[in-house]
């Protein structure tokens, strides 16, 4: 292909055309697809690590994994799922949907958009390459507490640090792009308080990202200089304090967990009204609830550190602030239920996943309330109860949110309906498997099984076996999900522009599949009823 270099040849080879299309694209739909596929690939990599963890925990004793390798799996599973699956998954959805939902031709800064995506494959190559290095991958848990990650971290920790820097840059640029798009590109008549809720929740999430990802970058930079340049931020010997690391990390970490769930709230708020065929109950209160959750998330980081020896006054402060978050969250759950009340509901796959999201996320929220209680937390701290809690809010929360969004918008993206029968099978096996995997963890955690340890006492054997069987089933259902998505992309029943009978919003006035360039002229808002009926 040497003769091509330096020349502008109108008919390029198919390979060059392919590379140019995907590497140089500035189209929000193509970049959205790239984000979603990256997220999907990493979902299987992180999932495979979870499978190894569950295989080892199938029985007490050491069977298959070395303890050090087990720790690497726990760490990498967490990092990949948080930074590689849920975050890019939501950014992918934002890229596809936000311009179509606000009537914009593209994102405000399309080249920046291309840049923020293409940083990510490099970040994850750096991170996962550490698995093949001498001394192994990072093994200190996804929270990388100092001094485990500074004084005692393996040499590959530096690759992890640079990987996190890159992910941070990507997230910050992506978030800035989303905010600029939402503020400047809305079609005429769409005031802020008329935006679809998915756009609202993403706007708030993007502000969280811009504010806390730099703090994470600061934390890993301090780690790097502690490791190599003789500083002592977290090194007690030089006058630093390891506890400071936990404060800095969780100042990022708590808003981060809302970054992982707020877009999911937005998705549920789009899907439930569609299939209940009613307007969303309490739109304004939804917006204010989301904003209050985001603001409160900055003053609750200490609840991750109750056992670290905080003074009583600080523990009480963090406990009350944490309990306060239950109020706006309760408002949201109430509104979703009220939207369904007396609606004419149908239960297509996106609706099923959204309902699973509401119910199981609420269970995860309740265990969060239990963990918020200082005296009770001393028992739960660092046990499997915590693992059960955050998997309930992340798997049936964030991941089910992304899945319901994919089922909901996939016909718009590829023009074909997915296989409804297989979709329903996917939902029911997933919801059984997710409960089978994570519900028993509550019991073994309360009984005292610590997290992040390769072996366990025999009294926990039965529940662990149930968990492992559930995990295997859960892993398999995601292969079915991949099949359903590919099948829908390759063909199937043609989707109408509106796709769903009760769907409202600008994206449903576009033909299915949505053409590469849409809304070159700003559309009328709100869309007149006949706009949904074309074709």
């Amino acid at each position, binding site marked *: 292909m040497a003769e091509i270099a330096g020349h502008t040849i109108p008919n390029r080879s198919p390979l060059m055309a392919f590379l140019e299309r995907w590497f140089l694209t500035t189209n929000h739909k193509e970049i959205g697809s790239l984000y979603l596929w990256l997220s999907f690939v990493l979902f299987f990599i992180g999932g495979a690590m979870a499978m190894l963890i569950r295989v080892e925990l199938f029985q007490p004793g050491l069977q298959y994994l070395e303890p050090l390798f087990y720790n690497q799996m726990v760490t990498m599973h967490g990092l990949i799922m948080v930074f590689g699956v849920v975050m890019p998954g939501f950014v992918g959805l934002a890229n596809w949907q936000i311009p179509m939902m606000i009537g914009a031709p593209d994102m405000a800064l399309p080249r920046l958009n291309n840049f923020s995506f293409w940083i990510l494959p490099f970040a994850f190559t750096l991170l996962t390459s550490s698995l093949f290095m001498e001394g192994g991958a990072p093994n200190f848990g996804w929270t990388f507490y100092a001094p485990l990650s500074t004084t005692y971290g393996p040499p590959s920790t530096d690759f992890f640090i640079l990987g996190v820097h890159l992910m941070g840059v990507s997230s910050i640029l992506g978030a800035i792009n989303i905010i600029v798009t939402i503020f400047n590109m809305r079609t005429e008549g769409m005031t802020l308080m008329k935006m679809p809720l998915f756009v609202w929740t993403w706007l708030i999430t993007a502000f969280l990202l811009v504010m806390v990802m730099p703090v994470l970058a600061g934390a890993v930079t301090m780690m790097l200089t502690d490791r190599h340049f003789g500083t002592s931020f977290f090194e007690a010997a030089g006058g630093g304090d390891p506890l400071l690391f936990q404060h800095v990390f969780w*100042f990022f970490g708590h808003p981060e967990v809302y970054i992982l769930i707020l877009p999911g709230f937005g998705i549920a708020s789009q899907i439930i009204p569609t299939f209940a065929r009613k307007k969303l109950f309490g739109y304004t209160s939804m917006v204010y609830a989301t904003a209050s959750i985001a603001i409160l998330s900055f003053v609750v980081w200490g609840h991750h550190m109750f056992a670290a020896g905080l003074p009583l006054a600080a523990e009480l402060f963090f406990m009350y602030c944490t309990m306060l978050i239950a109020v706006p969250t309760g408002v949201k759950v109430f509104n979703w239920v009220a939207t369904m009340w007396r609606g004419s509901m149908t239960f297509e796959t996106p609706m099923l996943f959204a309902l699973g999201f509401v119910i199981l996320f609420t269970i995860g929220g309740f265990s969060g309330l239990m963990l918020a209680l200082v005296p009770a937390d001393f028992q739960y701290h660092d046990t499997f109860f915590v693992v059960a809690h955050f998997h309930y809010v992340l798997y049936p929360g964030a991941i089910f949110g992304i899945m319901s969004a994919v089922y909901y918008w996939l016909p718009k993206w590829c023009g074909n309906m997915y296989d409804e029968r297989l979709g329903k099978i996917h939902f029911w096996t997933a919801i059984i498997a997710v409960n089978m995997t994570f519900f028993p963890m509550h019991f073994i955690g309360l009984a005292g099984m610590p997290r992040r340890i390769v072996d366990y006492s025999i009294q926990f054997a039965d529940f662990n076996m149930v968990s492992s069987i559930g995990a295997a089933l859960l892993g398999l259902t995601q292969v079915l999900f991949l099949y359903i998505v590919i099948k829908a992309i390759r063909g199937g029943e043609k989707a109408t522009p509106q796709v769903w009978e009760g769907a409202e919003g600008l994206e449903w006035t576009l033909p299915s599949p949505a053409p590469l360039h849409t809304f070159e002229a700003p559309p009328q808002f709100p869309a007149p009823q006949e706009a949904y009926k074309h074709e």
Partner: protein
Amino acid sequence: MSESRNKQRKHLVLLSTLALGMLGFSFALVPLYEVFCEVTGINGKTSNAVVVKPTTVIQESEREVTIQFLAQVARGMPWEFRPTEHQLRVRVGEVNLTSYYARNRSAQGVTGQAVPSVSPGNAARYLRKIECFCFTEQYLEAGEAQQMSVRFYIDEELPEEINTLSLSYSLFNAPELEASSLALASHPQ
């Protein structure tokens, strides 16, 4: 069109400033944390500054408290390190002297840095140290032993409910510091 371009640019600049500001804030958390802990006296941090013995005679009261001394040696630190007295019964306001024994068990000179911590945490700011080996790095030649003294008094403002407090030193290896300059610092006489 150009007006909206300008608005976009303005937003881009503002948001980038916010991101950079937050990066700065993450580093500002370090001194903020230090100051916060020192002012509130939480986290068991004692002030690392020498307290000059007040010119007026310190009020000695009848109140007595127990003070316990603890020592920990960090991994990779080849010193023997222990308090010479494990517990003292002292009068509040009275200046006391105690010491720690340190011996370098390794075959080369090692610099150590002791980091103090007081428990319960809210007693930290009432333990006033007039003289302490923790203020500077300590250098010991191979096999050398030394008594290292701590001169302190307990402030009479110590809350009523505290009857026992403990002073713990963790000793760390400080290899990156130059031995010669420290040897001077730790042997002033």
